[in-house]
């Protein structure tokens, strides 16, 4: 059983459906007790950092997530879920959860042909082996929709990169926390396969 964290940020049902497709039963919850006791957690999200943090604080889910992270529960962040796991977001000038050091900044593109948001399918290059990214094959692409990008302070936390004008961090991981800027639930077979690996993951990264 996985708990999908509900904090009024986007369409959780698509994550739930994708979990079901890979044989994982999921519960959508905003109850801090359920989140603290979950065997594993998916922390999704679309929308804006400011309102997301207000909602997390109001329900007490922000503390529950920090507790679960410290307790070693495997956690998968997706999109906004990834972004607010860092310390600060330029979006709404918001202080965020701080599970990992780093910040989130808006894409500023010099190339006028490129558009913001970065929307569509893009390749993901694994830069540091990670059990959850293990199934990514040459040529696999994932679906992205975002105007802000994560900048972890510690380069060792960057586990995959993608290129939009320049390279940016498209997946990060430390200890039992792993997160993708793209949407595995909307990325066809490649995305479903990533969710399957998360389900099997014990929360450890082999050295």
């Amino acid at each position, binding site marked *: 059983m996985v708990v999908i964290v509900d904090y009024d940020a986007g369409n959780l*049902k698509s994550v739930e459906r994708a979990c079901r497709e890979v044989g994982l039963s999921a519960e959508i919850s905003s109850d801090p007790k359920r989140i603290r006791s979950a065997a594993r957690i998916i922390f999704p999200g679309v929308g804006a950092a400011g309102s997301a943090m207000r909602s997390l604080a109001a329900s007490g889910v922000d503390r529950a997530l920090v507790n679960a992270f410290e307790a070693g529960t495997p956690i998968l962040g997706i999109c906004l879920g990834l972004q607010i796991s860092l310390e600060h977001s330029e979006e709404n000038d918001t202080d965020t959860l701080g599970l990992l050091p780093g910040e989130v900044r808006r894409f500023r593109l010099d190339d006028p042909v490129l*558009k913001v948001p970065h929307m*569509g*399918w893009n390749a993901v290059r694994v830069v540091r082996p990670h059990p959850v990214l293990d199934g990514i094959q040459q*040529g696999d692409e994932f679906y992205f929709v975002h105007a802000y990008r994560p900048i972890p302070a510690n380069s060792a936390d960057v586990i995959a990169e993608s290129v939009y004008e320049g390279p940016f961090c498209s997946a990060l991981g430390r200890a039992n926390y792993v997160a993708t800027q793209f949407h595995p639930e909307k990325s066809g077979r490649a995305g479903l396969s990533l969710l399957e690996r998360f389900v099997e993951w014990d929360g450890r990264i082999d050295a």
Partner: protein
Amino acid sequence: MLSKRLIACLDVRDGHLAKSIKFVDTRNIGDPVAKAREYYVDGLDELVFYDITASSEGRRIILDVVEAVAEQVFIPLSVGGGVASVADATDLRLAGAEKINVNSAAVRRPGLIAECAEAIGDQNVVLSMDIRRVDRSARMPSGYEIVINGGRKPMGIDALEWAKQGERLGAGELVVNSIDADGTREGYELGLTRMLSEAVRIPVIASGGAGEPDHLYDVLTDGKADAALVASMVHYGDYTVSGLKRHLHERGVKMRMSW
């Protein structure tokens, strides 16, 4: 870098797949859920549903169709047709659509775009524009006019101005439907698509007129579109999703080729 997207559009009327020529003469051509699954398995990048039923009974049907498709298709789903309020958009989102297309109601009341962007996020609001060629004039300097109500009602609004206004109001993407090209299979309207793509910094989806694989190539290169929308080409079995993607890939267009 981003791949160009191939998008299939399913017009749904009373629960069936329909296809129009120049926006009229619609025909029933199959089960939208089965088609959606078939295209997904064959490598489609994104799906669009347009609900062309006006009845309230039809509204329930499109929600059921979206729900059934979302159960088994794990790529972005975009839905439009008669969206006139944040409540309409929210219903479709709960049924499983990521992106909501607004069209006629936004032309009548542009504030709808901003309201939807606030409620569901800019990136999920798609401004779909039905456009026809007109003589250039002081009122219509681009030579293209916005038409609403499924192509029936010309609005005297310049298409270029409307595209820019839509972007300012918070649309995250534009669909450029050429009424003149719709269903003709003679190619997308390249000049129109390029003009709008160059005028905004949000992605542009070209729609209407595709009949041959090279029409997609033309609009993704010369037409500067970010995505090409097809309907007839794949619905009647003349071409497959994977075949079209392979053709574009072989001609040097960056496409997602692994699925």
